[in-house]
Structure formats: C-alpha cells, structure tokens
C-alpha cells in the first residue's frame, strides 16, 4: 500500500474562553497531515493529540450540514471543504465566522441568524390548499427549476460573514434568509408572497443590499443569494410601480 504524502501544517487558531479571557488571542499548533486533508481534519488532529480544549462545531464532513463555517485565512469557508492543498507554504489562520459574536474559540452565537430565518416565513403557504388525499400539487420540472437553486442553502452563514452590509447594519435580514423567502415566493405551489414582502421588501430587507455580491462568491452550494436579492428588488420595484402608477393599484 502506498503511503499518502504528509506534511507539517502550521495553524494559528483564535482562542477565547469568556470565563477566563478578557479578549481573544491566537494559539499556534503544528500537526502532521496527509496532503489530501481539509482544515477540519487538521483541527481534529489538534484536538485529539495536542489540545482537547479547542472548541468548534462540526458534523457531516461532506459540506451539507453547515456546522463548520469558519474564517480560513480571512475568508469564510466550511472547514470540511477548505483543502490543505490550497494553503501550501503558508500558516493557516483559523478564526470564528466574522460578523457574529464569539461564544467560545471558533464557536459563534448564531441566534441572530436563526431569528431572521424565522421572520421571513420560510414555509409553504399554499396558494390553493387541498387535503393530501387529493394527491400532490402538480409542479413541472420547469417550475421546479425556477426555485430549486435557492432551496439549496445549508444555512452555513458564510454569506453573512462575507456581507459588508450585515457588518455595518446588523438589522439587515441578510442574504440567506431573503433568498429563502424568495425560494418560497418562486414556488408555483405557494401563495404567501405578500406576507413575506412585509419583511423582505423593507429597508431592513433587500434595500439594505448594495449588491456587492460577496455572498454569492463565498456560497459553498452555488445558491447565488446575490442573484436572488436582485430578483427580489426587481419584483418589489414592479410592485411599487403597479401600486402607485396604475389606476386602482395592483390588486
């Protein structure tokens, strides 16, 4: 059996325990890692063999559970999808996701994001409710494709860590939550758009977004929140014109 190539990986990891630290600091670790490993594997090696006190979240190791978002050399990444081969010859600096309060070490407080998800009513509000005995709501593949991309969000919060608007204005509902609202708005089975517009078409909603597009760049699932927000803006503008310029309003 051939052996995998190994190398010594140097990490600088942000540490913060509110029970004993007045402010965060960096701690250096060195671990031997096979070249094919990801940053999360290196952290696990540190935790197992050097420092059991290091705290971070992780689970699936396949970029779908969304637990292990961290800043890796300044960029929001899933640490299970940040490959050591992309950081050859450099110290890897690992920090908790930007724009969120630090709970401990690499663990952030996610409450704000979770609250925002709930506010946009991210569930189907049926256009024409019927009992399940009457079978499925028909939806053609073309109708499915209209929203499918926006349903791929794993709630990893990388887009919030990348968003310059969220950094300045924490009230901004933000990329993932607005995208999720848009996902339901675009679903042919749904009739809840008006209810969601009350939340997402406000100043705290899409109009806060300056369309920098950083969210889409860091999204590990190619959901393209920036594209979703742009679509919401266009649709909201059309609403406004209908309401204000057409005789009798839009309804």
């Amino acid at each position, binding site marked *: 059996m051939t052996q995998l190539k190994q190398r010594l990986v140097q990490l600088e990891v942000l540490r913060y325990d509110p029970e004993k630290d007045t402010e965060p600091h960096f701690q250096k670790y060195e671990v031997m890692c096979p070249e094919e490993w990801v940053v999360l594997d290196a952290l696990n090696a540190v935790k197992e063999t050097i420092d059991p006190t290091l705290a971070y979240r992780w689970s699936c190791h396949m970029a779908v559970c969304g637990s292990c978002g961290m800043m890796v050399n300044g960029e929001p990444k899933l640490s299970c999808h940040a490959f050591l081969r992309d950081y050859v010859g450099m110290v890897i600096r690992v920090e908790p996701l930007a724009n969120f309060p630090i709970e401990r070490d690499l663990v952030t407080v996610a409450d704000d994001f979770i609250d925002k998800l709930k506010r946009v009513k991210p569930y189907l509000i049926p256009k024409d409710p019927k009992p*399940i005995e009457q079978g499925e709501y028909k939806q053609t593949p073309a109708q499915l494709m209209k929203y499918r991309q926006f349903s791929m969000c794993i709630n990893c919060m990388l887009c919030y860590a990348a968003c310059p608007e969220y950094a300045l204005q924490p009230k901004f509902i933000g990329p993932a939550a607005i995208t999720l609202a848009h996902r339901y708005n675009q679903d042919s089975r749904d009739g809840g758009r008006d209810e969601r517009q009350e939340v997402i078409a406000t100043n705290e909603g899409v109009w806060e977004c300056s369309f920098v597009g950083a969210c889409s760049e860091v999204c590990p699932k190619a959901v393209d929140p920036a594209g979703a927000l742009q679509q919401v803006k266009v649709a909201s503008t059309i609403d406004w014109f209908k309401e204000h310029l057409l005789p009798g309003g839009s309804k």
Partner: protein
Amino acid sequence: MEIVEADVAIVGAGGAGLRAAIALAQTDPTLKIALISKVYPMRSHTCAAEGGAAGVIKKDDSLALHFDDTVGGGDWLSDQDCVEYFVNEAPKELLQLEHWGCPWNREEDGSVAVRPFGGMKKQRTWFAADKSGFHILHTLFQTTLQFPTITRYDEYFALDLLVDEGRCQGLTAMEMKSGMIKQFNAKSVIICGGGAGRMFPFTTNGAIKTGDGMALAYRAGVPLKDMEFVQYHPTGLPNTGSLLTEACRGEGGVMLNKNGRRYLQDYGMGPETPLGKPQLKTMELGPRDRVSQAYWHEVQKGNTVTTPWGECVLLDMRHLGEKYIDERLPLVRELAIAYLGVDIVKDPVPIRPVVHYMMGGISTNTKAATELPGLFAAGECACVSLNGANRLGSNSLTELLVFGKAAALSAIAHAKSVGPANKAALKAQADASQARIRELFLRTDGKESMSGLRKEMMDTMEKNCGLYRTEAGLQEAVNKIVELRQRYNKVVLHDKSNVFNTDLFQVLELGSMLDCASALTVGALARKESRGAHQRLDYVERDDKNYLRHSMAYYQGQDTARIDYLDVVITKSPPGVRDYSGDHK
C-alpha cells in the same frame, strides 16, 4: 436548577424529531412542546441522506409489493404488522412533505418522479436530486417555524431520563453555551436521537451520531433490540467514508473488480444485466448486505484494487453521461471530485463498504412506544422492527416520517392519561444527574484520555464486528468493551470551562457509544447464525428454528448486557429464500 414544564419533550431534532413536533403541534395546539437537540435542527444527520424515500405511488406498484421487498430485504427479521403499517402510511407521509414544499423531482406532467433503488421490485423511491435527506430535513425544519407551541432548545445536551412511578416523566439536559443543567418535566418523552455509527472508525455518519438517544433509554432500563445488525453501505469514498448514494446504481452505475468484471453476478445476484439498463432487484440493485458482503469475498480472492486507503472495488458511472449525472447525481460528482480527485463523468471511482446505519435500536412497537410508559422513540435510534436484519435503501427516510408521527400521537394519548407528577422525586433525580456531571468535572485522579479510549473502541469494532464475524473475534470485542467501560470511569477532563465544553460532550458521547457497543457485541456473540447484515464465518446459515427472534439487550450497569429474545411477528410471509437473481432462472 431551572425547571422547564412541558407536555411532551422530544430529544433530537432531525427528521423524526421534527416530524413528531409538527404532528404534536397540529394535533393539539394547546400542548407545550420542548424540542431539545445537541445541534441546531438543520445540522442533524438526516441532511446527509442522499438517494430518496420509498413510498408506493405509481400505478404499476402495490403496497403488497413494498411489503414483500421490505420483509425479504430484512431477511424475515422484520415485524410484519409493523411493515404493513409502514407501507400503508408511507405514501401519505411523502405526499404530506410535498404539501409542505419539499422540492421532489418531477415528471414532465408535474407528478412526482420516482427512481429505482436496491432490493425494490418497483420504482418507488421519491427523490430530490441526490440531496433528498437534506431537502426533507430543511422542509421539516422550516415547517416547524410556523408553530408557536414548539419551543426549541438548540444545543442542549440530554443527560438522563427522569423515571418515577414506573413511567418516564422528563429528562435533564445541559445548555451547551453556559453549562447550566435544566430539568425538563414532561408527561411524555420522545427520543429521536439518531444512530451510533461513530462506534466505528470508517463510517458515513457525522460526528454527532454517537448513540446518545439509544443510551438514554438503555440506561433507564429499556432494551435495545437487534443491535448486532449494522448496515454497511456498499459505496463509500475510501478515504473520508463519504456516502455515494445507492442512486448511483439505481441510475445505472455498475460495480467492477480490478479485472473489469461486474462481480456481483458471482454472488447470487446475476446474471449480468445490460450496461446502462439497470434491472430492479438484481445485480447492482441487490440489497446492501449482499452487495457489501460480495466486496469482502472479492478481497479474499485478490480481485480488488489496492489504494492508499485500503482495498477497493470500482463504481463506474461514465456511461450515464455528464448531463444525466449533473441532473440526477450532482452531489456525488462534487464529493468525488473534492475529496478524492475523481470526476465520475470521466473515471470509475474507487469505493469500499462503509458503516452506515444501525438496524437495531431502542425497542419500540408499531405505535413507537417503548416498554417504559411515557417513553417513545422513532427514527434510526429506534428499532420498531421495520428493517429486520437489513434495511432497504430509501426506507429509512420514510420511516422517520411515519414513526415520528406515530410517536407524537402515542405521546399525546399518554400525556392525557397520566396524573400529576411527584415533583420532589423528579427533582431528586435531576439533582443526582447534576451530581454525576459534577463528579466528572471535579475528577482529578483519572488517568485515561477520551481520545485514547475512543480509538481503542473503534479499532475493536472494526476488527471484530465488521462484515464477517467469528466467535473468537466477537468474544475479544465483548471483553474489550467491558474493559473500556471500566477504564471509562477513570477518564479525566482537560477542559473545565462551562462554556461550550466539547471535551465534556465528547466524553459523554463516548459513554453513549460504549453502552451501545456493549449491547452490540454481546448480541452479536449470542446470535449463532448468519442473517442479513450479521454474518458469522462459524455459523454460515440462517437458523430460523433458534434465531427467528429479536435479541433484546438489557443494561446491567458495569456488567455485560443481558440478552433476552422476543419472537418476530409473522402475519403473512413465512421465512423464505431471498432471491436476487432477477427474472432469469
């Protein structure tokens, strides 16, 4: 200690727990529901399921056929009353998910699409590309957000059940961000804690799948059923263990040995079917136990490919073409490229069997009730005896819906039937639970390290409890687990912080896994036959005379588990021959 009063507490917020929560909230809006999980709901491992969920929907299919496939697939260890209930409820639950917005793949006419899956005689697996579990989990989670009576306790680690007057009346759980322990008084408790695949070193299971829910019930005296049945998924990436869904084969992928031979035909699953035209219930669409076991034989024959990550066979999907692969298997393509550097459009991908699913778990009946009044369980942590000795792919996503709902309805009925609690007794138990954690915190004489013990456990399980087992190996495993459980009492914490103390949680998780491993190893040693996923080199035949029975493991403190047996419920399908030779005879 803070006390939270609830009507029903749910431990675990994956597919089963969320489905239960919705059923509770919809059935009775006056109920106070506490949904407790050590992770945020969308981190639950349901998200990693790929292929789809089985339920009869097409005209050429029938409930009887789904029943037959499931019972035969389970090597007749399934309880047939349970299977009958399940196949009947399955389509309703999948339609319900559709009504909640699940983005199922569709036919051109707008009806839901289904795909072929292993061991199924008809196409009945509903799917959302190869991210079915992900979409099911998020659909359920998002749906729960409309119910104000569901109070979530995200990142709370469940510690102990509170059992008084012969019934379960709540639990203790630690808020992970503060280290505060809370007492949850509940008239009914539903455990939906998932599987325990992390007992093994090479698994598709996420880090959180450490059998905590199983261990909670087990320590409270509820038996774990059929724990020796561990499913190996035939197609895992050889380095990370990441799952490449069975849909790879359902869509037409084939398994090759190093000589390019479709070797499954040599193990009772032939003759060979034409390339790109998968035939149901044969060759690559055989059941997971048989397909995984064929790999083991290929290794013995020297027919496998040697890789840096061990012996492999090849999964070849090139003939499906890029367009079809991107439509049906986008995640598989992405995973194989990212973690192994293999593009399935251009090359066959090396794979090997990987620990995937626990058929066994908390013993429940068809109403999702355990032996302990007030305690219910659903999902992978439970053994309702749907899956028998070998689960068919795509039955488990449906299972967590069907029995998550059943657990909720049973929990409501129980909650309405019970009288007031003896609060002093519950508080005393909660205090004892807190004292147990405090002892662990304050322990200074410990010499054992968590990661050291964990590694020894994993190595033992892999060496002795794998695809093929022997008396000597299993005895070694039993002894080793006894030893590790003794040494576990001397494990010492390095981290003494109250804030998100992952050192502590890993120690607790190791305790859960060791308890599950105890039940597994003792059950496997006692079952002197080969059935489904439990294969013994020293007892190669199925033995219906002695072992057409469920093994029931009872917790005995530091001693090894006590094994008892329970008859399998047979209603209409007497044990027969599992035939995966297709239509060719």
